[in-house]
């Protein structure tokens, strides 16, 4: 694509100035920004930034939730050749120091007081950070900090500058080439410092339009932007594809109103990690359990029909006419209202990615008539590598390569990708770049996987995590921790699981219960508990979890290659694993190594045959204070099964 983000913006503004570009719910009403208004806002901000001294090639930090003015800031920076660096809005202040210093950031836009406080807190460590702009002035009136200005004042200055230099903006936009750096995304990274992934206009826009072609997206799509803008997925969906396709991006009123806003907007193109779909399903299930018996019976009856008929209908396979009629009635009475309640009535294409999705969960959404599919990609590949075509959707694959992508599996079993959307490199880190990019343009995904008979890519685990069982009856068997953990997490009662087994005789797991689901389960049984820690250690809950673990074992035993990964012992953790305590990454993936170090006593106890272990853990509260959670955890054996030999 021979264009850049700012040029696309100007093209939309010229072609359809009065069409909606973005909407933001404010004061209870969806306020529309037309393309023309958006472009003029970008021009003002860009002129203001130039006037304030932001240089071509310089990095600028943007931190906050999805707001039109934040996206305008990114476009403005790009217009004058600067590089926006979005940071996670829920990152702790200390986590922002590295990116800001690594990229020599002098300019930053913070959404509100919370983000401004964060930047001010680390100012001493980032002396070059000279200008901080804020979007929402609330609570900031009495701040007397040098270099702290409102975005409004920047826009006013920009307007004045633009009046004196009317041709400046366009000339700047024309200077950019598609191969210039467009944005930098810091990967959350499970170890060491985060790495800045450098993308050009070309890489991002090429992938954006590849995805657009694949699903035939038009400028009529409606998208709700609710995931962190610092995550490349959100950036592709609400920025690159927004400009490539010219559809409408809607910004929710606040993080707590997303469910309501989703219903009001009714997006046609939707993206969510499995975690969100899981949360939605859990709420539906809990509400159904609490509903009257007529509703409940109807729900379960028709969900059985949906499970049987729905996926086949979606895949356009032959379905009997009796089933068709039943499904149609179900659609009228249950699925339709349910889709509407979830805000999915208009969804044409929905994607999930980032983590494996449970087959039951996946089938649930497909069976009620939502075109939920999977895709494969990462920050380094600008998302789109593989996507599932509408009629070839399966829970255990991630789809076929899309336009421009080549895939091969190397001798380590690692998936290698070559595509026009690959990163230009890691910022100031040639070593890391050389590790992932080969001389002939292949990218190491670090994912172990293979292409199956139908040409779909199947991912098992991270290459570095795939281990071997050492000693015992399963000596030398493959151990895929994430595969096991995901299988456990597919149960609604299990929120997180961490499995160990590499270099050991057998596999053990630490499990986090899902407080909502298990809490509701306990309430329905009249089981009394006094909070999370107490509930987690109830013998009844252990029995419930043990049942789940054994089901997973039976499942694993069915696959000869993975039979050695069966979980022989487990415990239920006394606290939720939390990103604030460093146990999860900011994208909520478990940090297995860190957890093993932090809960060393527990890992030792799992392997030493003890039946219980006392543990004390420091936890960090939202306001930054710390406290101690202590508990004595029980450790329980689970039944393992003999591998089922494949029938000859």
């Amino acid at each position: 694509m021979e264009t850049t983000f700012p040029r696309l913006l100007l093209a939309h503004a010229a072609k359809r100035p009065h069409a909606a570009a973005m909407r933001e719910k404010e004061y209870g009403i969806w306020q529309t920004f037309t393309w023309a208004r958006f472009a003029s806002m970008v021009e003002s901000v860009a002129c203001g930034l130039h006037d304030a001294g932001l240089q071509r090639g310089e990095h600028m930090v943007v931190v906050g939730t999805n707001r039109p003015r934040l996206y305008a800031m990114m476009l403005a920076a790009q217009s004058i050749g600067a590089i926006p660096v979005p940071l996670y809005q829920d990152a702790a202040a200390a986590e922002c120091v590295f990116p800001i210093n690594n990229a020599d950031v002098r300019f930053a836009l913070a959404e509100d007081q919370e983000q401004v406080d964060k930047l001010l807190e680390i100012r001493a460590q980032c002396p070059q950070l000279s200008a901080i702009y804020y979007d929402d002035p609330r609570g900031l009136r009495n701040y007397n900090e040098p270099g702290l200005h409102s975005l409004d004042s920047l826009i006013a200055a920009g307007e004045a500058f633009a009046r004196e230099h009317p041709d400046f903006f366009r000339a700047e936009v024309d200077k950019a080439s598609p191969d210039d750096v467009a944005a930098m995304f810091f990967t959350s990274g499970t170890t060491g410092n985060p790495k800045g992934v450098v993308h050009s206009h070309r890489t991002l826009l090429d992938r954006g339009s590849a995805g657009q072609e694949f699903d035939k997206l038009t400028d009529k799509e409606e998208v709700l932007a609710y995931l962190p803008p610092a995550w490349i997925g959100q950036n592709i969906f609400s920025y690159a594809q927004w400009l490539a396709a010219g559809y409408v991006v809607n910004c929710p009123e606040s993080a707590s109103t997303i469910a309501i806003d989703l219903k009001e907007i009714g997006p046609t193109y939707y993206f969510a990690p499995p975690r969100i779909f899981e949360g939605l399903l859990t709420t539906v299930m809990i509400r159904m359990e609490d509903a009257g018996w007529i509703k409940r019976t109807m729900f379960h009856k028709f969900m059985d029909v949906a499970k049987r008929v729905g996926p086949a209908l979606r895949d356009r396979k032959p379905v009997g006419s009796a089933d068709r009629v039943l499904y149609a009635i179900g659609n009228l009475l249950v699925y339709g209202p349910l889709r509407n309640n979830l805000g999915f009535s208009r969804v044409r294409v929905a994607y999930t990615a980032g983590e494996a999705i449970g087959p039951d969960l996946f089938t649930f959404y497909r069976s009620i008539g939502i075109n939920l599919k999977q895709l494969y990609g990462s920050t380094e590949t600008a998302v789109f590598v593989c996507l599932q075509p509408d009629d070839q959707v399966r829970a255990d694959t991630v789809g076929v390569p899309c336009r421009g992508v080549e895939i091969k599996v190397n001798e380590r079993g690692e998936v290698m990708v070559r595509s026009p959307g690959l990163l230009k490199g890691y910022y100031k880190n040639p070593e890391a770049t050389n590790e992932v990019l080969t001389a002939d343009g292949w990218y190491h995904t670090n994912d172990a996987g293979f292409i199956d008979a139908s040409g779909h890519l199947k991912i098992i685990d991270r290459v570095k995590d795939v281990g071997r069982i050492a000693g015992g009856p399963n000596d030398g068997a493959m151990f895929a921790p994430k595969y096991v953990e995901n299988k456990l997490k597919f149960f609604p009662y299990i929120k997180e699981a961490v499995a160990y087994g590499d270099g050991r005789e057998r596999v053990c797991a630490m499990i986090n219960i899902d407080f909502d689901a298990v809490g509701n389960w306990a309430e329905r049984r009249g089981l009394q508990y006094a909070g999370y820690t107490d509930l987690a250690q109830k013998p009844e809950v252990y029995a419930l979890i043990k049942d789940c673990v054994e089901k997973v074992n039976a499942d694993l035993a069915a696959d000869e290659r993975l039979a050695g990964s069966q979980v022989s012992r487990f415990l239920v953790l006394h606290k939720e694993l939390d990103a604030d305590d460093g146990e999860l990454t900011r994208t909520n993936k478990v940090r297995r190594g860190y957890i093993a170090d932090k809960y060393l006593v527990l890992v030792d106890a799992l392997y030493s045959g003890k039946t219980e272990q006392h543990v004390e853990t420091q936890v960090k509260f939202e306001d930054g204070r710390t406290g101690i959670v202590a508990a004595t955890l029980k450790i329980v054996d689970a039944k393992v099964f003999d591998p089922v030999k494949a029938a000859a």
Partner: protein
Amino acid sequence: MNMTSPAEIAAVKKIGDVILHVDNISLAFGGVKALADISFDVREHEIRAIIGPNGAGKSSMLNCINGVYQPQEGSITFLGKTFRHMNPHQVAQMGVARTFQNLALFKGMSVLDNIMTGRNLRIKSNLLLQALRIGPAEREEMRHREFVEHIIDFLEIQPYRKVPVGQLPYGLQKRVDLGRALAMEPRLLLLDEPMAGMNVEEKQDMCRFVLDVNDEFGTTVVLIEHDMGVVMDISDRVVVLDYGRKIGDGPPEEVRANPDVIRAYLGTTH
């Protein structure tokens, strides 16, 4: 974040002239003396706390200012006008709004409607026009709705806009109560134990809202509270009552050091 001395804060906040003067107020219920010869003043834009142990006369004092109780002696001067006693309607029209210790919301009505009732005094069109929603009445309603939406945004209760108040947890109901008082665009806001019955987190939230109201709208706040920590953190000046008498008056640090206050309120050293 930025540690500033109270004097600097006062300068930034532009604490103004006295807008409310309470002179020698005495109130008795039969033989029980609730308030004895109380005098104090409230300056514009300040947060003024009235503290004291249970039964000290805090709510009675607020009820006198609010016009609910009529003191037997003394007078109240608000914005230059002196009254022997006020009536609640008149007080409201003069720009005094209040919240209640035990909440007085319409439980079956939505958050939005509850806050809308706070606009009642400012709605000019008559009942008929409002019922028919014609011309000026509709435009007026939109204007008021917009104002109410600003309050909803300010108090961060957007997710509950259409939820009946009775279904909300207590901490949020308190926030709605504050929202309704704010809807009156008061010059003086009387808060009767805004933090009572709240957990620590809810208290912190409420403190932030009170400070923000004071800061953003410049509203003068008179606040009753018996949580000492809360009061000392957010007030500019504090009046201490005990058994209907005033035993202390001044900035928090001065009151905290006052031996009478320590004895009466905090108890003697253990």
